[in-house]
């Protein structure tokens, strides 16, 4: 598979770039944040994105999807990353939708995936319990209760959980707290009795919820995949999440870099553009090289997922590690190169810095993915 986009993919990228520039410029995120929008994203924008088919990109036509791949979803995420466009594309489609695609049975997909593709149903993934991404570290318990289950526990960092219709919850039906075995995924109604959701505003203007599960009833029909085998499913979902999020990060960082480059050419000090100072030039060139590497590993990971490549998981971890390393180093440099104006709220570059920090940690930071990569390669 050549590491270039096909003509169709190039076209999708163009369309996405234009749409995002026009309908979701960075001013929109600023407005949502300043007005403390209850959703944290524009419902109107989201329904336009859904009409464009973005909410169903990797899903089959029978659920209303576009029957494309993660490469295409990544292309769109990269473009939404450029303007930091807030939408449930990551939470509901990349993470939630992928869980249904990979773990849902026919009935479940029909029932929920169709809503996801149409943009009407919002999903959120509730797996994290501690401060760090650590998928098997689950204390939330699922106890059998007649022909169903009762869930008890608490989750943190449930991105877009405050607006989700359904929550995909990782709970332990067996085993000890950090064991891989014994996890089960449930797709529970967010309005079910016992579900507590508290919105938390994040530093990047987006929202995540804290979830408490107080004896929440889950039916057998709400179990995704095999009971006790949730880790395998989660692994595959998180691969897609890591690669997709890396694509979004690539778009954000590339745009932050381009803005900085423009500033270096325009801002004058000592009678010359500051971009003529060699020390800044060299640092800019190093950022460029980092972004080139980033672009390659993101595309490679997305293509590998679409092609069911045996190394797809390792490639997804490589992509996320590369971008999680690049995120702070590039975003920090961009702020520093903007000088005083860079640390004011008025200038957009700070918004890129903040988003970079959130995405750096989401779904595992660079150290997490290096550890995973090393483990996959037997060392």
């Amino acid at each position, binding site marked *: 598979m050549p590491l270039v986009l096909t003509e169709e993919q190039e076209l999708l990228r163009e369309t996405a770039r234009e749409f995002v520039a026009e309908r979701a410029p960075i001013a929109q995120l600023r407005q949502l944040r300043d007005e403390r929008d209850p959703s944290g994203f524009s419902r109107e924008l989201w329904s336009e994105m859904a009409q464009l088919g973005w909410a169903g990109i990797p899903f089959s036509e029978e659920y209303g999807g576009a029957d494309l791949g993660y490469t295409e979803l990544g292309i769109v995420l990269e473009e939404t990353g450029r303007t930091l466009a807030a939408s449930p594309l990551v939470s509901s489609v990349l993470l939630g939708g992928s869980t249904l695609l990979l773990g849902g049975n026919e009935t479940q997909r029909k029932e929920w995936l169709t809503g996801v593709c149409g943009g009407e149903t919002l999903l959120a993934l509730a797996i*994290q319990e*501690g*401060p*760090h*991404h650590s998928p098997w570290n689950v204390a939330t318990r699922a106890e059998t209760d007649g022909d169903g289950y009762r869930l008890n526990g608490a989750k*943190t*960092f449930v991105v877009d959980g405050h607006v989700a219709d359904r929550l995909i919850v990782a709970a332990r039906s067996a085993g000890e707290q950090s064991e891989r075995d014994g996890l089960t995924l449930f797709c529970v109604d967010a309005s079910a009795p016992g579900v507590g959701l*508290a*919105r*938390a*505003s*994040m*530093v*990047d*203007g987006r929202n*995540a919820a*804290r979830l408490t599960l107080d004896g929440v009833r889950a039916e057998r029909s709400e179990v995704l995949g095999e009971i006790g085998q949730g880790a395998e499913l989660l692994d595959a979902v998180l691969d897609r999440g890591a690669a997709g999020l890396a694509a979004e990060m690539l778009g954000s960082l590339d745009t932050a870099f381009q803005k900085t480059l423009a500033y270096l050419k325009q801002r*004058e*000090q*000592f*009678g010359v553009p*500051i971009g003529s*100072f060699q*020390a*800044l030039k060299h640092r800019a060139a190093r950022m460029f090289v980092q972004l080139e590497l980033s672009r390659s590993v993101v595309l490679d990971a997305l293509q590998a997922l679409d092609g069911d490549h045996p190394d797809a998981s390792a490639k997804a971890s490589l992509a996320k590690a590369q971008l999680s390393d690049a995120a*702070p180093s590039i975003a*920090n440099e961009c*702020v*520093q190169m903007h*000088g*005083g104006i*860079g*640390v*004011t*709220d*008025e200038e957009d570059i*700070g918004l890129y*810095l*903040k988003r970079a*920090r*959130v995405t750096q*940690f989401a779904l595992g*930071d660079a*150290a997490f993915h290096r550890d995973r990569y090393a483990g996959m390669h037997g060392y």
Partner: protein
Amino acid sequence: MSDLESFRAEVRDWLEKNCPPEMRTPYDGQTQSYWGGRKRHEQDPIARGWCERMAERGWTAPTWPREYGGGGLSRAEARVLEQEMARIHARPPLASIGLMMLGPMLLETGTEEQKREHVPPIVKGEIKWCQGYSEPGAGSDLASLQTRAEDRGDHFIVNGQKIWTSGADTADMIFCLVRTDPEAPKHDGISFLLIDMDQPGVTTSPIRLISGSSPFCQTFFSDARAEKRDLIGTLNGGWTVAKRLLQFERQGIGNMGNRNPGANAPPPLPELAKRYCGTRDGRIADPLIRDRVARLEMQQQAIQKTMARSGDEAKAGQNVSAATSSSFKLIGTECNQAKFDLMTSILGAQSLGWEGDGFEAYELETTRQWLRSFANTIEGGTSEVQLNIIAKRVLGLPD
């Protein structure tokens, strides 16, 4: 009992009687400091009282000469005072740019009249000062500043705009760099002026930072008046004064990482890491985080030891390079950024909150401080400017 020991006993006794219990609690150095000024009566009366009692003895400026309101203490005595204050966790009585920057400079280069007029109110906290150096078009290239002061006999008329004027919205006076000779080469046409902000020609507007706070303002001068007697140094000789004062500023910013921890301060790094990353055999469980913590703690030690060495060299009468403050500003602010970077890695998702329940106060505060730390490598001369200074003045590398 030596003189110093009897001084210590006296200080201890006095502090015991005069430092109110409320002034012995942790506080947030940035927002809870007492900064005095004409509006000081609006501030916490206990803090005001504490400052006034200390100022009576000149202990807000312990080593400054008595004749200008200072404490007249020797360095050794001042250290005793410091130690005794630290012993009871007494808050500094007064946070002030006047104390940190303007006062030392005036004592060095002001005329007798200027010292008598301006230094005592600094010591007493009666006048709050702010600094007017940068302009929107003159950041690293400070000398390209455009704010103009026209000579009108006994006074100047000032027009222009300053940026990054810290605390200008609550300040009484501003010390400013202004252009007094537009024809001269850029460094040679600048003067150093003190300007009363309590006049219609001076207005301010706060700047919101990425951390959400607004410690800085833009300050606008529209036919503002400055008295001739408030010209510091010679006419058009302001650049020399400015450079000297910048050295005091750099030391202040480089030190920011060592600020008094506030009530919302997180536990020390190793504790924090144990709390968020777990422990194994009593150690931080994550070996990569543990290595980073040790690296940072060691770097902080190295910086502190270097500052101590520099001070000891000065005391020993050795040449201390003018660029020393540049080194500390550079490394101190970068180390501070690295510290917050590590802290957010330790806190993980708990470092990503902006507001809302479910975050400890110190978690939210750490995030804000992390964002605030980005300004440290820019304000008071960017890291790039400090590197230029070191390369030129210390290493003698050619232009």
